[in-house]
């Protein structure tokens, strides 16, 4: 069964990544990371994303700050998802993730656990929360912060 067929599992995944976000910390060798502060203008979320990149591969991704459940868990899942991947692969994943958020066609297999946010459109005010981490990552990797729509 797919994750997206099981609302209970989806809840559990969101809550796990909220209650125990393993990527939520300032990295030890922070000087090796590029970082960006993502302070939402429309809500409380205020996080900093840290990305360590070498030879076009994201070796590590972390974040820290204050954020709601949706922002915390979506960013934590994102960190898991992009670790060890190339920039091209990440661009593809991000593109599919944003497509899902904005109710367009997307490849569920590509975004793995991040599919738990497929209902975000029901709470439009939380779209910012579910994309804050992703926008930060894109800004670091691709120098863009403009939201895909």
């Amino acid at each position, binding site marked *: 069964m797919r994750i997206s067929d099981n*609302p209970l599992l*989806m*809840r559990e995944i*969101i*809550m796990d990544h909220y209650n125990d976000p393993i990527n939520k910390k300032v990295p030890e060798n922070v000087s090796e990371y590029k970082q960006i502060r993502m302070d939402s203008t429309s*809500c*409380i*979320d205020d996080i900093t994303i840290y990305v360590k990149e070498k030879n076009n591969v994201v070796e590590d991704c972390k974040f820290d700050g*204050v954020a*709601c*459940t*949706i922002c915390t868990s979506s960013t934590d899942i994102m960190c898991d998802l992009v670790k060890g991947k190339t920039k091209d692969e990440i661009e593809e994943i991000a593109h599919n993730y944003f497509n899902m958020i904005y109710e367009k066609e997307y490849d569920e297999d590509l975004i793995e656990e991040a599919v738990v*946010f497929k*209902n*975000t459109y*029901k*709470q439009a*005010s*939380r779209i910012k*929360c579910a994309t804050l981490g992703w926008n930060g990552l894109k800004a670091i990797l691709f120098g863009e912060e403009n939201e895909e729509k």
Partner: protein
Amino acid sequence: MYDVNKIRKDFPMLDGTKLNQGHPLVYLDNAATTFKPKCVIEACNRYYEEECANSHRGDYDLAYKVDVTVDEVRNKVAKFINAKKEEVVFTSGTSMSINLVASGYGVKHLKKGDEILLTEAEHASNVLPWFKVKEMTGCSINYIPLDKEGRLTVENVKKTINKNTKIVAIAQITNVLGYLCDVKEIAKVCHEYGAILVLDGAQSIPHVPVDVKDLDCDFLSFSGHKIYGPTGIGVLYGKFELLQDTDPFMSGGGNNARFDMCGNVSFLQPPAKFEAGTLNLAGIYGLGAAIDYVNKIGMEEIHKYELELRNYAVSKLKTLQNLIIYNEFAEGGIITINVKDVFAQDEASYLNSKGICVRSGEHCAKILHDFLKTMATVRISFGLYNTKEEIDVLYETLKNGGDFLDAYF
């Protein structure tokens, strides 16, 4: 007899056709802004549809009519707060009003060694303009401590104020905790020390009767949209001699008597000297209608009704074990809560999914550590049209407030 159902009929937003997430709309974010009664909307439209012209020196009837209305509304506002007409300046809202006092009076008169007193419960709009004054004049900013509950007491004003204090800037009702402070006594203390009292009335004007003569505050700011009027129109009241002693922070059309090529300008007297540029005329029409509207119901009546609502809500919400109430005894129509172990923003989303509009917010570091011991809270705020039935909906929804992810499934 306060007939809330009759009152609700005046508000198009409450006509029962507006849904929020498929549920009947329960609007409990009145501290942010309020819905508008039909008479206010019609008054704004009357400007655009019937009397559209610029104010100031129009040579035709239409423009004259606009001037008369602006004058009438100024008079209405003055009567509403017991001021003189010349003491009422139209601004875009509370933020602009406070900025005007800060830059026009604060920067002009304060110097190194002088002090501005604030509290840690002030809204950003009553903090940041004063930071600017500090930056520009070298004066200092200090904070009057709040008591255990988060209240501003006369006692603490007395303890903090000193001969260097030139300005005390406080909210009559604070926007997070909703406490009403004793302005009259605080004004006395300020004046004993030669300081002026700059009052932020954004959260008090819509909910309690305010009489500036009786309070003896020196400046008072408020917004039209929080008192059922349009957005983009607000008021600065100042004692006339203080307004004369305040510089405009905008110059241009409408605020000067004459000027020459050498740069000599003679500004008009207050309030015109602060009103450069075309005013928000439709906003002024609407503000006038809003004041008529609340006057018809009566500010005393409104205050009494909102307190009754608040008490009803607190007594119900208190029974919920999963709830923390931060300001059980506040006088304003604000209840600040959290559901245990739920981040405020998640709770607000959950309430939204059930049709209930509230605001979640974070608070400045001080108040958070000293009083609330949390990063963020959910603010419920009442207006004159809220009902006990709406509070029942809130209560039933908060009962299950821990299941906040329901909003997404």
